[in-house]
Structure formats: C-alpha cells, structure tokens
C-alpha cells in the first residue's frame, strides 16, 4: 500500500459523521468613499497613498518620491525608470533595484491590500527584492472587503497571486515594529487610471 492509499484509507475510516458546509452571507457595507477607506486601512499597515500634483507625469513623480534612487525598475508603461522589467532575464538581476513600479489589479478597502500577480509584476521578485515599491492603482478598482476580493476570478487564473498590504515588517524582537524587514522598505500607492 502506498502512503497515499494508506493516508486516504485511514482518513476515510476515521472521518466523523457528515457536517454541512455553511453558506457565507454577505457582510458588505456600502462605503461612502471606498478610496478613502482603502487609504486609511493601508496607512494602518504602514503603507501610504501619494497623489501627484496636477500635470506631473508619473515618471517624474516616482523620481520625486524616491529622489536618491539609482535603479528604478518599471513594469508599467506610464513610468520609464532606468530598467524595463521586460529586459530582466533572471529574478536575481533585481537585487540592485531601489524602486520597483507596478500596477495593482485592484485594492481592498477593508485591509488596504493590493492584488498583484505574475502578470502585474512581470518578474515576481520585483515586489520583494526591490528596496521600495510604488504601486499604481485605479481608484475605481476598490472592492469593499476580503470576501469580495476572493470572488475575483483572477485568483483562479494566476499562478501566483498576492495581497500586499504595506511594506514588509517584523515585530519579532520585543514587539518593536520594524517596517522594512526583509522585503520592501516602503509601499506607496499612487492613484492612476490605466492609460
């Protein structure tokens, strides 16, 4: 008997009597301003929303946000940066990236999370090896809560999907909160409708 057969046989022999699967009701509240709710939830998690002044091009705005950045790797057409993600052959090449720029697929008002996948990243490691991440997000793309987020069909298509909520963080030493644990040190969302 293989381990697979053995485990399945033992599980089936020992499974307690049938319990029903509940239906999940909708808890959704109508939000007066989903974008504002998203922004304050994100701020609690250490991320921020930055709004470019009228007439400022996104490329210039990213340089303004991270003035000292040498390597800006962009996965969006709106920002040129210094390196195109399409030119990256191996994820390890992203080790020197100061700022990564991506476009989030949608945001979640409840938690301040942004949905990203291999399609948005181009190379997934961009969201973690870069020192800082700038995320363009359509303000009309905010869903109310995580229940709504998990109804998005893209979860069924993406190889890798991540809800990113602010920068990497740790409180493993005496509960002292450190923003910028091992992944990105900052997470800035810029409102921008897709071109």
């Amino acid at each position, binding site marked *: 008997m293989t381990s697979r057969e053995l*485990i399945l046989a033992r599980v089936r022999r020992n499974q307690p009597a049938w319990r029903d699967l509940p239906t999940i009701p909708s808890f959704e509240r109508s939000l007066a301003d989903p974008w504002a709710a998203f922004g304050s939830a994100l701020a609690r998690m250490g991320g921020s929303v930055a709004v470019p002044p009228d007439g400022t091009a996104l490329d210039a705005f990213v340089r303004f946000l991270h003035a000292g950045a040498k390597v800006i790797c962009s996965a969006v057409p709106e920002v040129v940066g210094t390196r195109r993600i399409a030119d990256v052959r191996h994820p*390890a090449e992203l080790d020197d990236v100061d700022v990564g720029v991506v476009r989030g697929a949608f945001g979640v008002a409840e938690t301040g999370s942004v949905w990203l996948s291999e399609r948005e990243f181009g190379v997934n490691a961009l969201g973690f*090896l870069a020192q800082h991440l700038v995320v363009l997000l359509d303000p009309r793309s905010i869903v109310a809560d995580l229940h709504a987020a998990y109804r998005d069909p893209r979860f069924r298509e993406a190889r890798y999907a991540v809800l990113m909520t602010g920068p990497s963080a740790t409180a493993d030493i005496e509960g002292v909160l450190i923003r910028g644990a091992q992944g990105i040190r900052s997470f800035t969302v810029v409102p921008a409708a897709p071109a």
Partner: protein
Amino acid sequence: MMNRVDHAEASSKFIEAKDHADFHDKRLWDLRRKRDSESEALPEWETLRALASQIKEHTLTHLGDYLEEFERNATANGMVVHWARDAAEHNEIVHRILEAHGATILVKSKSMLTDECEMRPFLENRGVEIVETDLGERIQQLDDEPPSHIVVPAVHKLRGDVAEVFGRTLGTDPDNSDVPYLAESQRRHTRPTYLRAHAAMTGANFAIAETGTFVVCTNEGNADLGANLPPLHIASIGIEKLLPRIEHLGVFVRMLSRSALGSPITQITSHFRAPRPGTEMHVVLVDNGRSERLGMEDFWYSLKCIRCGACMNTCPVYRRSGGLSYGATYSGPIGVIIDPTFNLRKYSALPFASTLNGSCTSVCPVKIDIHEQIYKWREVIAQRHQLPMVKKEAMRVAGKVLASPKLYRAAVEAAAAGLEHLPRFLVYNPFNAWGRQREVPAAPAQTFRQWYVANRGGER
C-alpha cells in the same frame, strides 16, 4: 521511552529570570488586547467564528474527498504532490527532492510542521545548509533552541539576548541591542542567501481543494523572496489545512492575523497555484498522526486549528511559564491538547498546565473547545494511571471532601479563616505554586453558603 516533561519544574526556571518573565507576560497580553480591539471592530466577528468552525468541521468530515480534489487540481496546475504518512517519510521525501536537484542550500520560511517533523537536523546531517529566514525563527536557529511560540518564535528573548546571539553568530556588535540595528543586520545577512539558494521551502496556512492553491501568510517578505528566486519550491502541508473553495479564504484570512497579532491582515498573503515557468513546485501532504486524531471522538476538533496563537497569548499559564517549558513543538493551550496525541506518557503533565479558565476557548477563531478538551485529557491521563503522585494524592483528598457536604462546608470555612490568619510566609511559600507572582485575593467575610443562609433564609 522518553521522560515525562515536567512543565512545573521548567516554568519555575523561566520565572526565576524576572525581567524576562515580566516582559513575556506583558508582550503577550498586549497581543491579546490588540486582538480584542480588532475583533470588536468587526460586528460580524462571532458569525465569522461560527462559519470558520463549520467550514473546518465540514472539511474534516469530508477530508478524503478534498485531499484528492486538491491533489488532482494541484497536479493539473503543474505541481508535484507527495504524501507522507509520518515525520520520517516527510523528511525523506524532502531530502529526495533536494538530492534530485543537487540542491544543498535551502532557504526556509517558518513552518511548525517541519519543526514537528524535526526536519532540520535530518537534512543538516545529509549536507544541506538550511537558513531559517523568519527573524524570530532565525534567532532560535542561531541559538540552537526550538521556537517558544508558534507565531513569534523568540518572544521569550529580550533584545540583549538577541544582541548576544547575533554577536556570537553573525558578527554584529554584541553590545548593541538597538532593535532596528538587529533587524537590519539580519536583513543584510539573509538577503544574499536568497540569491545563492538552490531551493526554498515554505509551510502553508491553507490549501484550497477547488483550485489546488496553497496560501502562505507572512509579514517579513522572506517566504516570497524564497519562493520567487530559486528554481525549486517545496511546501510542507498538514492534511488538516484543506479548505474546500477559494471563497472560504475570505472568512479565514479575515480572522487569522487579527487573532494572531491584532492586525487586519498579514503584510503579505500569497497564493501559490502553479510553479513559475521553468521552475518546480512540490507539495508534501503530511499525516503524522492527524488521520488517527481524526478518529478520536473528543479530540478531533483540535484539527480545526489554524495556528494563530491567540490561545497562547491569552493563557495565564503560558504567559507566565514560556513556551519552552512545555518541552514540545506545540505549547500553550493548543499544545496541551495536541501534544498528548503524539506521546501520551511524555506529555501527560501538560494538560495540568491550565487553570481551565476557558479564555483560550473564547478567543479561538475556529471555536475549538480547548479548555473542555484539556479537562478530557486529564480524565484520559487519570484513567491510564499517568497522573503524577502529588496530583493523585490531592485528588484523593479532594474527592472525599467534595463527596461530603459537611466536610466541604467545614473545609471552605476553615480555608477562608485560615487565609486571613495565616502568616504570609505560609501562603507565599515556595511550595505553593498559586501564591507565586501574585497576591491571593482577600477571602470574603462570609462563605457563599453563610450568605445564602442569611439572605435566602434557613436550611432546606
């Protein structure tokens, strides 16, 4: 075979280091309070708990089908699914996969399951370099200690301890215990490892049957750095982690980090459905006693656990004794009800490390009746004659007293009078575990029965 873990003895050592014990208590209580404000902010919290419990119970009562569905879908997505009946087979499978890839450097994110399987020494003895990447877990690895908490592994250490460990192992300044300095040192030390690693390993918080996805909830970025750099990703998943459908994640992800750390969600919640092109993704489904536990009428509910640690943070015994005193992979209330299923004799003292106050049960996001299970384990242990001598004698006396109303009343009145008149050194002596670290509240002037007789009139 193995000696019984003496939790009381180990805790007394923990308590001796007063700074550590006080901080530990305070830090975990702070997590509990943060959890409270998050849960109180959601009007549907209790509904979510009920749903989570029902979804888990449904899944566990159909686990065979859901495991097969997960395997089918994960395989169709391009993952390789393995089955391990126990810890030894799990470790062998992981070793075999690494060997087939010539992989000798492994970056690993936190996984209680790999601790349960004692995987690290097994692989290290076979020439694999393993770098724990979670900060707390890394501190524990470098200090050659197991994690003391399932969510915050080094919570029993103070910053000075970490400075000492890092100074000894990473070459940082041992006198610099500045927390940002220590965290930054680990960041700089670990990041190059992701680039040279041959393989990455993660656990999983949830596995979705419907899509063959597994979900990893973390904060530091370490799991995703690992998973997105080397060409090989291995995930060890306990068979109880299954959920039927993607939509169920809404319920569980909403509650996991709120219960664990008091934050609305983890910074990074990752869903792995298929390998990156040109890379391999392996899943090891591990039983290691779970299928047997599923058949234990009273105890199968512990398989609902999502490893949030809320029961540990709220437990007065855990907070004052530290996770290492349990001498087991899983400590605190959840450990107390899981550990005896691995080795009843070795862990027979653990179900007594509880006041049965029930706080663990009320914070559990999946409504495991933890304190009732603790009580049931005590019964099992008493029936199997695993009760330690002192407890046996105390129970024998208690049994006699409780069986006789007269004796009971006399005992209660004497105890109340006694407390008031006993010299302090008798109440707070080293033999009275309950007098340690706290003041016994003043005994009321009347016993409840005296009050009842006075106010509700007369003997019946």
